[in-house]
């Protein structure tokens, strides 16, 4: 998989998959205009996203709740924020329930993932995915798409954790244990303390952190471009 990313850029991969992909929500998503890497970061639309899951194993665990808020014009829009649950196939392990507080009773009232996923894909159209430790969201989402639609999910991705690592490195600061946690990172930018482990609040928290990080990137001769901040393009 990863070798593909080096050999082909996002657009090439997108076109490759599109050749055979059947009609449906994922195809509609693929057909939207993807932001180009050379765009000024301020001209791009983002979707700050967070999932709560039954665990961290992308192959076994399932998505329980989805929270997101778009960022446009350096402004996080709560009016377009959304949050919903999805019903897991298996019972929720206690080890994860104590973290996100979603119980089987609550989850059983939710609709299955295949019914809510189109809503998320619609919101992701033409946007860059933003998440803290984005691999989790990206891979859970990609696995879900593969299972439901037969094809992976692809998107330009900004990982606020990776951005934080770059900032530490550029300042030659050693990274200590816990420094990269979302709440710890937020404190460095004077962002408020939010309660953790709710998908929407965590998405908003990551979105705010992203705005802060971008304003803190060193001023360069050229304006900051999308390619300078994404991990996957």
């Amino acid at each position, binding site marked *: 998989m990863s070798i593909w990313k080096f050999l082909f850029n996002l657009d090439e991969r997108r076109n490759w998959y599109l050749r055979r992909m059947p009609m449906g929500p994922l195809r509609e998503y693929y057909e939207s205009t993807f932001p180009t890497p050379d765009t000024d970061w301020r001209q791009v639309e983002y979707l700050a996203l967070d999932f709560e899951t039954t665990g961290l194993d992308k192959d076994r665990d399932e998505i329980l709740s989805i929270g997101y808020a778009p960022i446009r014009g350096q402004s996080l829009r709560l009016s377009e924020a959304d*949050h919903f649950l999805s019903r897991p196939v298996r019972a929720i392990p206690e080890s994860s329930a104590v973290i996100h507080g979603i119980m089987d009773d609550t989850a059983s009232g939710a609709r299955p993932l295949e019914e809510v996923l189109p809503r998320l894909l619609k919101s992701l159209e033409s946007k860059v995915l933003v998440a803290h430790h984005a691999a989790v969201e990206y891979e859970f989402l990609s696995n879900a798409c593969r299972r439901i639609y037969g094809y992976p999910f692809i998107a330009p991705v900004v990982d606020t954790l990776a951005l934080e690592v770059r900032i530490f490195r550029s300042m030659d600061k050693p990274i200590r244990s816990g420094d990269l946690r979302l709440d710890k990172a937020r404190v460095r930018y004077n962002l408020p303390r939010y309660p953790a482990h709710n998908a929407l609040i965590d998405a908003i928290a990551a979105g705010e952190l992203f705005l802060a990080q971008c304003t803190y990137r060193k001023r360069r001769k050229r304006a900051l471009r999308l390619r300078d901040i994404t991990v996957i393009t």
Partner: protein
Amino acid sequence: MDIELLEIRDFLAANHPFDQLPEAALAELPTMLQVRYFRRDTMISEINSLESYLYLIRTGAVEMFSAENEILARLGEGDVFGYRASHRPNQVEHHCTALEDTLIYQLPAQDVDKLCEKHTQFAYFFSSVVGDRLRDAISQATQVTSSQVNLITTPISELIKREPITISPSATIHETARKMSEERVSSILVCAQGQLAGIVTDRDLRNRVVAEALDVNLPVTEIMTFNPSSLKEDTFAFQAQLHMARHNIHHLPITRGDGIAGMVTATDLTKHQTTSVVYMVSDIYKQNNIERMQEVANQIPDLLVNMAVAEASADSVGHLITSITDAITSRLLQLAEERLGPPPVSYVWVAAGSQARNEQTAKSDQDNCMILDDAYNPGVHADYFRELAKFVCDGLNACGYVYCPGEMMAITDKWRQPLAVWKGYFAKWIDQPEPMSLMLTSVFFDMRRVYGSRKLFREIAEYALEKTRGNRIFLAFMAGNALSHQPPIGFFRNFVLIKGGEHNQTFDVKHNVIVPIVDLARVYSLAAGSKAVNTLDRLDVVAEGGEVTSEGAHDLKDALEFICYLRIQHQARLIKAGEPADNFMSPDHLSHFERNHLKDAFSVVRTMQNTLGQRYKM
């Protein structure tokens, strides 16, 4: 809204003006917000776009500057700006910079408009007329519950319940008593041709008729009290109450023009109030030594606490507390005269400063002076008046009205002089204004007779007014003096922000806010040639006379009332905690609501100071 945004909702609910919104509106509000982040030292918004959002600072700090780069405000967590929140005087053109890394919630102007349409309390915050907001703040802060408060503004005529019961002077005692029992009254007025001739009360029938076994067929004129004390119908009920306490009478005829409007009894008044001011005053008049008067004066802090709890308006508190000072002063003078004998020449005891203006709160310093008749002969009379002044000033000091640090007291020889000398003082102060004399004029232009000759007082007051009216040079000096104390700019977190951007822990509510308002009112009222002394009265006169716009005068009145109200609450809190009352307020003790309205009050004062400055070309 999903429950997830509760955290943001709670933050909104904790801050003004969002705290004014009902639950349902608050619940929806987070979903209307946009979140923005500003790095330290970056510009928040261009001048023109500041009005398109209402900004609420979630974390960080923002500074607001005028077009001339003078600091207008420093804002911290929970403060709002932009939209019409910045439609405040002096703040029309400005730009904003993040002072720290700042996260801001912004609400688009059209959403604020919609909220304002639906929620009046919320809309008040954005009212472009600062005064409206202040008025609203006062009515929210002070719910006038105490009936004592009402007596202050109620004319005595409103307490008259029926037509006066009268009887002719030719009636017999028997006829009089019969009419009184038929009419079920405890007193009757004796009238000849509609004119009040005397009064007969139940007590007179007992003491002068039954106890003396007097013939009931004698004319009523044998037992009536001739020319009883009476008051005009437009006298305020509270003054009537004090009058009765002072003269120890229980029945008070009320006159209307030349005739009789009716009768008010002590019972009529006590039905309307139970607070202790009137009892304290009548108590004071019963005391024959300073120790006992001291005991009464010691109750003043408790009285202030009670009035603060009752949310009495600052104006009524000022009048009530000052009336006790007046009573103590008068009683001390009576005692002094009893001790030293009647005065050899007439004199008037004059209160100056806050006592003159009826604006005292917890105990204050004493400011007073004596004006003696020009027949005063220092060689013969000096000792008498020195002793008299010493007795009164010492007495006041013992009662907690400590000696004036500036020695502006009758005990100081300079301030115990015949009328001609006083006229000379005023002439010098007014014709050759200099800093020291301005300080003195700001004390002695607030004068009120407390005891003694009305004629002497009238003469000096009219003389001073005559000399100042239209005297632009002197008024310009007074105006300059009125601008010497300036209110703070606002608050920043738990600090007070002062001009130049510096911080203080507290602000002096007396010198930084109240004194400037009092000074402004004095200048304008002198310019208008008004005799008014109380600041609110002065501002009324000034508004009518067109010296300032009536909105301006109104706003100042509201600013004064609000700030004095807060001061009373502050002093009451100190007294309750067993600490001495002072004028230093800390933002720690102010709610968001109070801080916001204080900022309004500050800006009203600054605006009016600027207007005065321009008028006298400062």
